[in-house]
Structure formats: C-alpha cells, structure tokens
C-alpha cells in the first residue's frame, strides 16, 4: 500500500486534534467549547480524506453526520455555558 496525499492529510489532521484535546482538558469551559467545535470539523475532514484515500464511501457518511452533530452539540453546550454563571 502506497502512502498518498490523502493519507498524509489524514495524519496531519489527526495531529491537529492533539492541541484541541489539550485545550479541552487544561482550559476552561468556554475555551474547551471552542476547541471541541474545531476538533469536530477537523475530525470530519479527516474522515472525508480517509474515505477518498481508502475508497470507502461509509467514512464520508460518517464525516457528514459528524460535522452536523458537532454543530448541534456546540449549540447545546453554548446554552449550558450561558447558564453556568
């Protein structure tokens, strides 16, 4: 199996999840919410490039569902943040 640009992009995107996780663990609620929203987008894109690189369509379905649920989850978490004063 040869490594393509899709695999390299997936690795780069997965590396990007590290800083987001660090912010979620080490910082406050608002900062963690920003990082988790970004992590949702990055993870969805990682699934999309994996779907293209591995020629597996279901990964793209997962990516689409993940980016929608990430947005909805962030809206709900923002509501909790508002009321956490």
């Amino acid at each position, binding site marked *: 199996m040869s490594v393509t*640009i*899709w695999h*390299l*992009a997936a690795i*780069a*995107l997965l*590396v*990007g*999840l*590290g*800083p*987001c996780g*660090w*912010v979620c663990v080490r910082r*406050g*609620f*608002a*900062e963690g*919410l*920003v*990082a988790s*929203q*970004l*992590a949702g*987008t*990055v993870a*969805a*894109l990682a699934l*999309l*490039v994996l*779907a*293209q690189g591995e020629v597996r*369509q279901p990964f*793209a*379905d997962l*990516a*689409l569902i993940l*980016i*929608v649920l990430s*947005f909805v989850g*962030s*809206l709900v978490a*923002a*509501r909790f*943040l*508002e009321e*956490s*004063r």
Partner: protein
Amino acid sequence: MSAQHVAVDVLVGAGATVELIACFGVAAMRDAYDRLHFVGPSALGALLIGAGVIVRSGPSIIGLKAVLIAAFAVGTSGVIAHVIARAARISETGDWTLRPNEATKVEEE
C-alpha cells in the same frame, strides 16, 4: 504527474495545513475570544479539501458529500463563533451587550 494530480495535491495540502495552523492557533491563544478567531479559517480548510475531492473524483457521490461538508462548514462557522462568543460573554458578565464603562467613543466632526 498530470495537472489534475498537482491541483489535488496543492488543494488538499493547503487545506490540511490551514487546519493544522488553526488547531495550533487555538492552543496558543490566551482566552476564548482570541481562540475563536481560529474557528473561521477551519471553514477555509474544509473548502480547500472539498475542492480537492471534487477535482479528484468529479461529479460523484463522495464529491457531493464533500460539497455538503464544505458548504456546512462555511455556512456555520460564523454562526457558531457568534454563539460561543455570546455565551462566553453572558457567562462572564450576565449580559452580552456593552456596559456603560465599555462604550467606545465616537468622535463627531
């Protein structure tokens, strides 16, 4: 290597780089408002990667999904940035509007 392969490499490489910069930017900034500035560029990365998939696959099912993902990311990044900033502001001060001592001065000519 054809022009199509070069275009795909450039688009996907640029998209992944933008996402990586956004992730490290979020970790490097000081507070939630500074970190929010890096949520917007993530939509640009989604757009670049989606374009790469379209160039590689053409009009196909995965191309359609890539378009939907990129469009969703572009359409919602501004919304979610506003919602999070508003929620952070309310959690800090109880209201998201300006307080009297925060009002900016407007010079009249």
